[in-house]
């Protein structure tokens, strides 16, 4: 197999606490010592940042069920273009990924068509309906890396408790979409000043916070890992911070959009600002940033949710929730969080590499020799305007189109193979 020598990059490897200029050598799909190379392809990367491949623990690929919006092939190509070498596929496809057969289908198509590692996530309950536990053991055997009912949330606390206990015995982390549905019912945006002003039905923060509180109680009682997906409110961050301080095995993720946008964006009725959980108040947004900065939130995940233009070009009330994010995550986070001085670059990279790896139980996710050669390179100085028409994703539902950003992915390497290369 081919060899690569990635030269003179700023290497940031959070697991080993490395931030230095240097070279990375790749042979036969793994990272090796530079001295082991015989005739490598040399890529000059002066001025670029090189890190372990980004992991997105929250991606909707829409296959099977809605391949007009996205496919495993197009979604994985979008991931590669966004610097992601591994993505976790959420199970709310149609049919749901709640059986071994569905997981085997996903793995087979991914093996044939995907350019990055597609890690399957299985449902906690059959059909994600929150009524009956899915065949979690069979899902484990089929290769799922985690369990989630994302898009929905188990409302029956007794069932949830059993799911967490059962998942623990199969060593599968839980990733929960935290939403109490009676409070959220009918809501289309954050409940607060802007929902009152616009006359829209609100989704109160308490809808998320109640379930976060529940999950913290279960994680402590059962002593098992529960990851809170797309955390969106100040109170959620506070609860997570206190729980983690007590050593309870809970983690939380924030999305690039919740970190950079707030509910005022909705005043123009653009459905590309409609997502669940909704964009929250500016105060909530600032709390999320505090959580990212102080280590309460260890994961940035995109919640990449493709929808066709037809689906989104409707009345705000009737539009589906969600936006795409794989191809905008790095530039948005780099521009708004790092370039603006809120967090340091190694912190951002940790949230996109070691943080998600820890959630999935991947140990020693680094650029150490012997590790799989999953590598991301980007140019922190490149300035450009986001153009949705350049996306690899089949969908265009992004609020970031036309935004001026800094930070461009140049190279994505999966198991030593270049899957995306542009500008280096």
């Amino acid at each position, binding site marked *: 197999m081919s060899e690569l020598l990635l030269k003179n990059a700023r290497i940031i490897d959070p697991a080993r606490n490395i931030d230095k200029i240097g070279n990375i050598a790749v042979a036969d799909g793994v990272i090796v010592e530079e001295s082991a190379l015989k005739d490598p392809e040399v890529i000059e990367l002066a001025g670029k940042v090189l890190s372990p491949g980004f992991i997105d623990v929250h991606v909707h690929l829409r296959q099977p069920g809605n391949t007009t919006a996205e496919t495993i092939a197009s979604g994985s190509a979008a991931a590669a273009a966004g610097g992601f070498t591994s993505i976790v596929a959420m199970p709310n496809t149609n049919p749901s990924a709640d059986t071994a057969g569905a997981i085997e289908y996903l793995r087979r198509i991914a093996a044939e068509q995907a350019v990055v590692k597609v890690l399957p996530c299985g449902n906690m309950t059959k059909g994600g309906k929150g009524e009956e536990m899915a065949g979690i053991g069979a899902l484990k055997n089929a290769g799922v890396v985690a369990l989630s009912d994302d898009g929905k949330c188990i409302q029956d606390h007794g069932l949830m408790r059993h799911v967490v206990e059962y998942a623990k015995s199969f060593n599968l982390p839980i990733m929960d979409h935290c939403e109490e549905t009676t409070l959220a019912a009918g809501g289309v945006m954050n409940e607060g*000043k802007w929902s009152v002003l616009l*006359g829209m039905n609100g989704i109160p923060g308490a809808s998320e916070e109640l379930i976060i509180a529940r999950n913290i109680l279960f994680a402590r009682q059962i002593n098992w890992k529960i990851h809170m997906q797309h955390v969106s409110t100040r109170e959620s961050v506070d609860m997570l911070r206190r729980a983690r301080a007590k050593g309870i095995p809970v983690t939380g993720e924030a999305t690039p959009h919740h970190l950079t946008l707030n509910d005022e964006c909705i005043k123009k*009725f653009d459905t590309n600002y409609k997502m669940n959980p909704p964009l929250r108040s500016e105060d909530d947004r600032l709390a999320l940033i505090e959580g990212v900065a102080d280590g309460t939130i260890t994961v940035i995940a995109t919640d990449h949710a493709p929808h066709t233009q037809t689906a989104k*070009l409707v*009345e*705000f009330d009737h539009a589906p929730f969600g936006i795409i994010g794989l191809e905008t995550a790095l530039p948005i986070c780099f521009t708004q969080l790092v370039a603006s001085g809120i967090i340091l670059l190694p912190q951002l990279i940790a949230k996109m590499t070691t943080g998600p790896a820890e959630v999935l139980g991947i140990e020693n996710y680094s650029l150490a020799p012997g590790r799989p050669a999953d590598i991301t390179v980007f140019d922190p100085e490149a300035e450009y305007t986001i153009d949705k028409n350049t996306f690899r994703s089949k969908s265009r539902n992004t609020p970031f189109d036309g935004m001026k950003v800094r930070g461009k992915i140049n190279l994505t390497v999966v198991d030593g193979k270049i899957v995306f290369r542009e500008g280096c």
Partner: protein
Amino acid sequence: MQWKRKDLLGLYDLSAEEITFILDTAAEFKKVSERRVKKVPALRGMTVVNFFVEPSTRTRVSFELAEQRLSADIVNMQAQASSLLKGETLLDTVKNIEALQVDLVVMRHSATGAQNFIADRLKCGVINAGDGAHEHPTQGLLDLFTIREKLGGFKGLNVSIIGDILHSRVARSNIWGLLKLGANVTVAGPSTLVPRDFEEIGVRVCHNLKDAVANADVINLLRIQHERQNNGFFPGIGEYASHFGVKTATLEWMKPDCMIMHPGPINRDVELAGEVADGENSVILEQVTNGLAVRMAVLFLVAGCRK
């Protein structure tokens, strides 16, 4: 000033000067309806589509009559939001209407912002006849017209809007218009229907009827919808009426000349006792009359702003 908008979507976007301009224009159109010939040729040759994606009787009749008095050609279309969802999209529907060389679309829709969504994508003018709980600009304007006609102006006036503020587009359009024109606005009702968040938009929030009416120059009562009871916003119509309904006894707490308004249709003896609705402080029927004048003015101005 001169009118420069092809659409009327809400009062939130309008300046005080624009609102006053509409009211001034409406004053002249009111006279048309008082003449023997209650019709002017202003919109002759223009086609107006009344597209109602939510049932309405009064607003639709008022718009239709306004259009007739302006000599426009009229087409009425009715649809259910749910059937629109299953079949053709709203945008396709209105694009098809526009392709028939229509000049104006008067639209009501149950979804907030639906009119803003289509107005951005159509060349023809769009008049909002009520969208979700967002805005009902012509109702807001007719309430403002009635207040100005009766009381002369807005500066320092105390106006209390009482009822289900949370779900009311009438309340929001009134709030924006009144605040821009310099009135003090109080919103009142049970806290489930009048959340504190309203304070952030510059109005006083109160949960007590006596407090709400005591200093008011105008009270505007909103219709209480029975379905809110089923959703647990309050225990029952009877309890609502006893705590927030305006009755003859309530008049003792009020200034003697306090003006009583209601956008209709009234739930008699729920938010407003029948004898008060018919009493001398009530201007409810004048509101209906003024609604026609205001809608004529709005149609005229929006239709006149082409090219």
